[in-house]
């Protein structure tokens, strides 16, 4: 770590190198990871039982259609297992004291009743728990009073179509213990089968021949005697509840598909009610079951244990049942009081719900504790308080969706087939309540016509949600798109006001959706009426031509907006940070991550609605902001990972392969017979262990895998699960933790390649899964241990581009303690912002830029090179070398560990509408500059037309949306209006994309009398003549549906933004740019500021059009990402690199010539050599080598041949 400040122990003079991150959604997780990977201790507090947040609930993500869970789950696991992140789930922040650099927080961990350390996440507790409702628990006995059971006054007999058909299947043996029998005859009276013989003062005797095993006698025997003994009941030694569950399961299996509707008089409901719940509301009678409806506590246990669905909850009680709903699935299905939040949850440990658990409320039941094999359930848990010392806080509690009930006209909550968009996400999700089938909640019918209604709880003054929620246009488009992928007969329609697809590649996505028959209608829906019989929905709206329309739909999705939850507002109050009237955290546009209280930073949608990549970006940025002032203490509170020594595998040692076939919940197991694949795997040569976990990737499974590797002395591991791209690193690190070289591993993707692509052919899908598993086993057999070399990291950062992003990045990196080289092509720092005048709050950019420039130039750690350009680039992450040409014409070689590209963008200046020739036509930037001196009389009554999308969203110019122009126009229009209220301003637009809180300025502009007229290049084109003589513009104003003519004094064009020329730089860095010239990020959702090559990052408008605030955020984010590398002492190189075996090298130069990266060279030992740090691992040289003497880690001929041979072996 050259150039990094020394780390210090906490001796009182230095800040605390720890950060409290509030909120475990994608924002909090990203902040936590970036901090923890850069040497900061992290405390991550999440109020729900598991991390993951909203993103875990989503099905797919726009605009790439990536599966949300698939991409977030590796992050969940990484956070869950990170040694420097301490996770507090089901917890809250109680208080915060102290100041920036040395806060003390008190955290409250709510009682979970399950020991997180002991629980394996097996989920058995949830399976055996019989409770499905929120019970009406009997009032506890008054002080000193003896606890007695209530007696039913209101009884109801539940009958089936026929009389009960008693079953003897899985029968328990009831017998009378003569020594205990009270000779009361209760059992004799209760028995409906005449199996009990009793006479007064005689011990009762049960005739086993006649007994059907219903247990009526057992229930009837008074507690004081308890003379009836049960034999042959599985799990009875655990508890009655466990035994009931065991028998119920067997009977359910037996009666499955038999159409049995009559009571089978198994007696499980009665036994449960009496012996497990201590209620005694049920009794077996000749005609069926007699329920004491007034004393029923409505827990639902009787219903859930009934093997034949004879009972229904509303039959057994006279109260209104209150089903327990699964909040993760948005209440679309039920859950148990003991519940694992969601299948991939981290930690995958259930929480017992205090409101509904019978044990916690009445002291009865306790079945879950009795069944838990590891004794993890403790009903005596109490909430705990922990005090932690931290230097900074990141506030990222996330958002919730708008309560659609407030918009009563849409009938949400009344009409069953009106759902919210988040509910629809769950309906689409493969792990959701319908397993990904699009079905109406009302009747499970497959809907054909589905309508999305936009702006429900957004851009709506009537319910105090004036802001735009930013994400709804895109998520609705995505949901419509994906719905059609699930069922191509679906006809989606989206009703919208403005299509705000303002992000990178968003417009293309909308176009693709249109191509996929998603219908877009620009209209506000006024009301929905339900057809009470069919459940279909009638929508009323006014279309573009002004006609009133009614249209029938099968289902309606309300695109609900997002808002700050009440709890978050309260927490903000405790933290003493300022919120705006909607509850969003207030920040300064130049310091976008800082809250009003020093030391507390903010990230994510809680500071304004935003999508995932922007959230991730902010999260990284917040991590940077939160750690910059703690940098001097970096590393003082963390522990390094210590891996057990690697077991050296003796070549003589036989193969010991372990195979794990993943269910992936139902993702795989619903199609592929995983048990059969597991059995098959056991037959493969060398396989000594095989099993099929529900989620192989879950934390508990990974811990288990580690144990299995050790216990079975495995020397190879194979998983057949999902995509190696996302999950292989996880499994490999588990191997390492078990002391096995991580390359003794292979993975078959039986999810994507079997269950997903062949859902309709389970038999063949299973065969294919076997084959893929066989191939993976063969490949693992051929596996070799590979070593990763370590090298020292140069802790300096090269920043290319000295605009606002580049300067911010340089300054922040320096604050983090890293040396910085800042290279700017132009003669002065500042970039495009030099052309602009004022921020949206009216402050002059020049002041801000001046301050920034001064700080950059005066910082000792930053070396600035203006009028300089990068001409040559080599090296690799952690150890780059870059040559620049300086103004003197000389070159300089800079050594550094990471690169940040911030080459920026500039205003597009197309030669249209007289721009460049007429002085009455100008761009927004020109206009903004002119406004600075617009004091003369001429301006007072000036007529200005602003033309939006002038050369944007236009295939002949810039095909994309430049994102900032609408806000830019609103800003300038309002400024002119404030200076000269008499001036007339007409803004001609296609969609006003004033996303997020910028919507507020847009609505203010409208109220201030600025006129907005919509046009459409196809359906409502503009007629523009711009000449010396004057300008004339004609368009049909859709609001009045009449042509209007403008004769402005000034025509202001919003022309958009185009990237600066960075073609050579991109090719030197070998990073891709999109067809518009913007750099392409490593992952559109989760790695928004990473470039695809390791060690390269980007920020600002080089990535895509954005505002200066967004650029600042990205710059800080990119520094955070770079800090995860630069803060390390050393790094490891990939082991998947080509290695030349010099024995047979013919020194023929084939590899030297074939390598696209120019890595191989001929060394002084007369052999080709490949620098492992530079090798990209493509294997081109391996395939070309005529002597076959180059080998590529795990992609050797031996491996590939093994797979090919295993493919065809039967």
């Amino acid at each position: 770590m050259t150039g990094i400040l020394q780390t210090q122990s906490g001796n009182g003079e230095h800040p605390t190198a720890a950060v409290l991150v509030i909120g475990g959604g994608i924002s909090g997780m990203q902040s936590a990871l970036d901090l923890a990977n850069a040497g900061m201790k992290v405390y991550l507090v999440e109020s729900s039982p598991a991390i993951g947040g909203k993103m875990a609930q989503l099905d797919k993500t726009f605009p790439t259609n990536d599966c949300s869970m698939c991409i977030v789950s590796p992050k969940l696991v990484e956070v869950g297992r990170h040694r420097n992140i301490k996770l507090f789930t089901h917890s809250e922040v109680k208080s915060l004291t102290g100041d920036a650099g040395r806060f003390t927080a008190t955290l409250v961990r709510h009682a979970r009743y399950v020991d997180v350390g002991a629980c394996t996440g097996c989920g058995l507790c949830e399976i055996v728990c019989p409770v499905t409702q929120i019970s009406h628990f009997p009032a506890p006995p008054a002080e000193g009073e003896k606890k007695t059971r209530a007696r039913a006054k209101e009884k109801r007999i539940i009958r089936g179509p026929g009389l009960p058909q008693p079953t003897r299947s899985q029968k328990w043996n009831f017998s009378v213990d003569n020594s205990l029998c009270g000779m009361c005859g209760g059992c004799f009276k209760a028995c409906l089968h005449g199996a009990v013989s009793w006479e007064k003062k005689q011990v009762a005797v049960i005739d086993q021949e006649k007994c059907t095993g219903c247990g009526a006698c057992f229930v009837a025997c008074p507690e004081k005697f308890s003379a009836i003994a049960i034999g042959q009941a599985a799990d009875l030694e655990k508890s009655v509840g466990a035994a009931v569950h065991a028998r119920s399961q067997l009977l359910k299996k037996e009666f499955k598909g038999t159409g049995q509707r009559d009571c089978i008089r198994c007696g499980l409901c009665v036994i449960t009610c009496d012996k497990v719940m201590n209620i005694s509301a049920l009794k077996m009678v000749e005609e069926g079951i007699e329920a004491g409806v007034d004393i029923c506590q409505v827990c639902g246990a009787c219903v859930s244990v009934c093997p034949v669905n004879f009972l229904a909850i509303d039959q057994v009680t006279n109260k209104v049942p209150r089903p327990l709903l699964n909040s993760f699935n948005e209440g679309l299905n039920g859950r148990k009081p003991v519940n694992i939040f969601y299948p991939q949850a981290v930690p995958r440990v259930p929480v017992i719900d205090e409101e509904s658990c019978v044990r916690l409320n009445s002291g009865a039941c306790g079945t879950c504790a009795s069944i838990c094999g590891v004794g993890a359930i403790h009903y005596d848990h109490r909430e705990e308080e922990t005090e932690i010392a931290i230097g900074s806080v990141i506030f990222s509690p996330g958002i919730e969706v708008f309560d659609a009930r407030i918009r009563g006209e849409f009938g949400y909550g009344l009409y069953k087939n009106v759902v919210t968009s988040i509910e629809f996400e769950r309906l689409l999700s493969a792990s959701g309540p319908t397993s990904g089938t699009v079905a109406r909640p009302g009747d499970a019918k497959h809907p054909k016509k589905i309508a999305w209604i936009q702006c429900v709880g957004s851009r709506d003054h009537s319910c105090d949600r004036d802001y735009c929620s930013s994400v709804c246009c895109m998520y609705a488009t995505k949901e419509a798109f994906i719905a059609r992928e699930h069922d191509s007969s679906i006809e989606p329609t989206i009703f919208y006001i403005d299509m705000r697809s303002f992000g990178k590649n968003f417009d293309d996505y909308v176009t693709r959706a249109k191509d996929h028959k998603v219908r877009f209608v620009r209209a506000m829906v006024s009301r929905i009426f339900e057809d009470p019989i069919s459940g279909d929905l009638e929508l009323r709206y006014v279309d573009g031509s002004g006609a009133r329309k009614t249209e029938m739909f099968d289902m309606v999705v309300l695109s609900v907006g997002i808002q700050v939850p009440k709890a978050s507002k309260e927490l903000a109050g405790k933290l003493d940070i300022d919120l705006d009237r909607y509850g969003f955290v207030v920040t300064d546009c130049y310091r976008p991550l800082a809250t009003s209280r020093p030391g507390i930073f903010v990230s994510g949608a809680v500071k304004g609605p935003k999508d995932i990549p922007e959230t991730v970006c902010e999260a990284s940025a917040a991590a940077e902001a939160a750690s910059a002032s703690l940098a001097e203490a970096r590393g003082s509170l963390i522990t390094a990972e210590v891996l057990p020594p690697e077991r050296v595998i003796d070549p003589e040692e036989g193969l010991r392969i372990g195979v794990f076939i993943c269910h992936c919940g139902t993702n795989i197991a619903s199609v592929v017979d995983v048990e059969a694949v597991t059995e098959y795997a056991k037959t493969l040569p060398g396989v000594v262990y095989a099993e099929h976990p529900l989620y192989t990737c879950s934390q508990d499974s990974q811990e288990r895998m580690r144990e299995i590797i050790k216990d079975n002395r495995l020397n190879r591991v194979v998983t057949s699960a999902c995509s190696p791209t996302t999950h292989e690193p996880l499994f490999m690190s588990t191997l390492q933790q078990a002391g096995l070289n991580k390359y003794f591993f292979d993975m078959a993707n039986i999810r994507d390649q079997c269950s997903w692509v062949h859902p309709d052919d389970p038999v063949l899908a299973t065969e294919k899964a076997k084959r893929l598993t066989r191939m993976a086993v063969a490949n693992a057999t051929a596996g070799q241990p590979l070593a990763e070399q370590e090298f020292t990291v140069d802790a300096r950062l090269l920043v290319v581009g000295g605009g606002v992003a580049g300067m911010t990045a340089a300054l922040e990196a320096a604050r983090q303690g890293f040396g910085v080289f800042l290279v700017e092509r132009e003669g002065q720092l500042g970039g495009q912002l030099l052309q602009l005048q004022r921020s949206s709050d009216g402050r002059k950019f020049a002041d801000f830029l001046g301050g920034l420039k001064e700080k950059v130039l005066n910082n000792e750690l930053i070396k600035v090179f203006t009028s300089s350009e990068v001409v040559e680039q080599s090296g690799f992450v952690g150890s780059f070398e870059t040559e620049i040409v300086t103004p003197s014409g000389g070159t300089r070689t800079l050594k550094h560990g990471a690169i940040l590209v911030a080459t920026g963008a500039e205003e597009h200046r197309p030669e249209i509408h007289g721009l460049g020739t007429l002085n009455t036509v100008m761009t927004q930037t020109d206009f903004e500059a002119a406004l600075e001196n617009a004091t003369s009389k001429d301006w007072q009554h000036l007529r200005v037309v602003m033309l939006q999308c002038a050369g944007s969203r236009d295939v002949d110019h810039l095909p994309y949306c430049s994102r900032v122009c609408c806000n830019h126009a609103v800003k300038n229009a309002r400024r002119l209006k404030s200076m000269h209220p008499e001036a007339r301003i007409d803004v001609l637009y296609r969609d006003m994309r004033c996303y997020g809180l910028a919507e507020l300025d847009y609505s203010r502009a409208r109220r201030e009398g600025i006129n907005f007229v919509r046009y459409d290049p196809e359906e409502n084109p503009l007629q523009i003549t711009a000449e010396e003589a004057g300008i004339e513009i004609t368009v049909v104003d859709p609001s009045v549906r009449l042509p209007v003519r403008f004769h402005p004094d000034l025509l202001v064009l919003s022309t958009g933004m185009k990237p600066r020329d960075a073609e050579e730089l991109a090719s030197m860095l070998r990073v891709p740019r999109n067809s518009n010239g913007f750099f392409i990020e490593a992952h559109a959702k989760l790695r928004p500021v990473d470039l695809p090559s390791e060690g390269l990052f980007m920020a600002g408008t080089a990535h895509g059009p954005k505002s200066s605030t967004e650029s600042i955020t990205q710059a800080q984010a990119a520094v955070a990402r770079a800090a995860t590398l630069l803060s390390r002492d050393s790094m490891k190189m990939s082991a998947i690199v080509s290695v030349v075996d010099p024995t047979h090298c013919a020194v023929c130069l084939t590899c030297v010539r074939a390598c696209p990266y120019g890595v191989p060279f001929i060394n002084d030992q007369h052999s080709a050599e490949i620098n492992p740090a530079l090798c990209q691992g493509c294997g081109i040289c391996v395939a070309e080598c005529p002597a076959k003497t180059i080998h590529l880690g795990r992609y050797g001929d031996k491996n590939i041949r093994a797979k090919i041979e295993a493919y065809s072996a039967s």
Partner: protein
Amino acid sequence: MITGTPKPIEEIMEMVEPYDNIILAGCHGCVTVCRVGGEKEVQVLASTLRLAREAGGRTIKIREVSLERQCDPEYVEQMRPYVGDYQAVLSIACGAGIQFLAEKFTTTPLLPGINTGFLGVTERQGEWSERCQGCGDCVLHLTGGICPVTRCAKSLFHGPCGGSVQGICEVDKSVKCGWQLIIDRLKALNQMENYTKFKPFKGWSTARDGGPRRIIREDMI
């Protein structure tokens, strides 16, 4: 290096037709460098032969070996322990290597898998061209380092002939006129006086015209 090209597979199939159990021998020398007879080509040819054979209803067993060089007796001897177990050896070394195998293993038929080409250089990946004919009497010092024997289609010593057009030989549009190259080079070297010098008759006895050649260097024996 010595260059070569693969023989057409049909021709090789015909050669191996009588056999069911052969050795396919590559060489780590020149033919590896010119990518016609190295380990990779052994694998490709072996697979090809097995496939072709089996498609015709018969199988063939092929032992794939690659000798360090087929033109040195010590390396060739490495095959001796097992060569007798096979019906033939198909070699994809140069003609020298193949013959050397034939000499050493007198009772095993030797089959050539490549056509040996010339002494040449690599122009670029996948392109080689001739530079030397091994005439045994080098005159490169007089001709600007460019061989008139090899580079001129007519091996003229006082070229170019009238067929030289804009530096291109009349024999093949893709071949540069050797004499144009010589002249360009002599001019660059300021040695044009070498050009106008009359060159006496070349002695071809040191070339192949003198019969199979041998080099014996007493000092090295």
